[in-house]
């Protein structure tokens, strides 16, 4: 069976068989792990797995939720999403006219108003989160159609703050 996994802006096509995994055009020998302790926390299921890939035991921590898998391997986290879910989540992502708050924070200043013409990279809103100020910039050029934030207000993660078209 073929599964499409999205990671960042890439899509990997993975086909699992009894003892191999094809990832794009690469074939890996995979020895399935023994079951170990399973931890559930906040909707996630976490397993420590030793998966032998191409003869090398790889120790991974894997966290699963309905539509996402996080794999920690050799100190790096690989965050995967299944096709559709990822496309939804990425809706406000790279190159989009919808500028979203990447995490909850306080709006320090709003630098544009509806009707303004903005360039790619232009500063739109200054957010403060975890004691640091960060500037959200336009990812596309265009005209500001809506601003859903005001200075001093709070925004949730993923909230659309500015719409450009």
């Amino acid at each position: 069976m073929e599964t499409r996994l999205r990671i960042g802006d890439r899509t990997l096509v993975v086909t699992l068989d009894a003892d191999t995994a094809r990832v794009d055009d690469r074939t890996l020998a995979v020895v399935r792990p023994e079951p170990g302790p399973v931890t559930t926390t906040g909707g996630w299921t976490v397993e420590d797995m030793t998966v032998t890939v191409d003869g090398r035991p790889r120790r991974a921590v894997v966290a699963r939720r309905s539509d996402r898998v996080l794999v920690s391997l050799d100190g790096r986290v690989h965050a995967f999403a299944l096709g559709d879910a990822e496309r939804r989540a990425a809706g406000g992502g790279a190159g989009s006219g919808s500028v979203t708050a990447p995490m909850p924070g306080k709006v320090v200043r709003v630098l544009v108003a509806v009707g303004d013409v903005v360039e790619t990279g232009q500063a739109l809103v200054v957010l403060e989160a975890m004691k640091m100020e960060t500037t959200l910039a336009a990812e596309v050029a265009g005209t500001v159609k809506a601003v859903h934030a005001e200075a001093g207000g709070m925004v949730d993660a993923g909230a659309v703050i500015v719409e450009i078209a």
Partner: protein
Amino acid sequence: MRSVLIANRGEIAVRVARACREQGLTTVAVYSEVDRDAPHVRAADRAVCIGPAPARESYLRTEALLDAARTAGADAVHPGYGFFSENAAFARAVQEAGLTWIGPPPDAIAIMGDKLAARETAGRAGVPLVPGAEIDAGNAKAVAAKIGYPILVKAAAGGGGKGMRTVASEAELDEALAAAGREAASAFADGRVYLEKLLLRPRHVEVQVLGDTHGTLVHLGERECSVQRRHQKVVEETPCPVMTDALRTRMTDAALAAARAVNYVSTGTVEFLLDERGEFYFLEMNTRLQVEHPVTEWVTGIDLVHAQLRVARGEPLGFTQKDVRFRGHAIEVRLCAEDPAASFFPSAGPIVALREPQGPWVRVDSGIAQGFTVPVEYDPLLSKLSAWGEDRATAARRLWHALRDTAVLGPTTNLAFLQDVIAHEAFLRGETHTGFLGEHFPAWRSGDDDAAAVAAAIALTRPAASTGATTTAAPSPFETLGRWRLA
């Protein structure tokens, strides 16, 4: 002194609690409503809730902290770093409440906490200064032009990189002044800023000092903390890779002179910029325990928190400068909840999984636990990982492997970035300066396609047999993948 209230949170509160219990002292943790389940609460003997999540309503409320001390029967207060650690008014309030303040004299905090008074004091003590000046409403452009760009805007009450901005030219000055002022006001309740000449490719080198109330004042060598991002230290080490005996003598003499000028007691750090010609300039003095104190502890074998407690009790240090010996090399990195591939935007939320490294000469100062939710209200620092080695290369390799043994799932962290930084050949050659990250990591990506392919295979692989765990949730796509379905 029998019971210590720790007016802080996170890894430093845990670390202080450990030192206290090792001296037979009971500890009182304070926590805001979002920190109820935090590791620093679990590390203490008593715990008192002091208010809602925002620091100004909890960790920065003097009355709440003093009330907590009274309620729980604490007779001493340790401030950790950040929050009230460099607030002279708080230190005085603690003392006026009849409690022992575990830190330097409030007057020393006050002088060194005002960056302008600190410059003046250090200058009078013969310590070399970076060219710079105060500003008032209206004269900023003129003063900046006189010093010459690039310049640095710094908070008068600041520290830790907050309320600080680099300005390359006059066009950027107004916005930088406004931003630094806002950050300073938010972090220190004092929005004053001043200007300083920006040195090119300097190293950040600082000297740890330690004094008791009996007139003993020693240095514990230097630390280099040049690998910084927006003036937040990322990697710290000791010794400084380019240190010579002669330079160390000059620099530690200058640090001790600055400390003596304010009758310093307890732990403190005198920060310098070291330029490529080997000249150094006073930057500021941090009148507290430093985040990066573990590397000094590794090479000297002196427990800085134990020493703070002894000094606060009025005991002599019990050793002098000639007893301080340095062995090997130590490196620390700061594990933060931030995304190095997205402008280091801070991250937060529940720690879904946490695996911390162990082994010889590896130290973890952790402020998180699996299941704990990293709040959005505080610093993104999650934990510090440090390693010691007979030499710098061994320490770096050991720390790199320890980082690879670490797993944090949940908030995005800089874990992989840290690995790449300390494995970078310029870092391994010791070619560090405050612009190191901007020069070598202008746009970092965790770019290991091979690992991503292996991870993708692992993501879909399930154990050979049922694990005994079942959930009532609808089966996820990961549980219905044909023959890989969970048995």
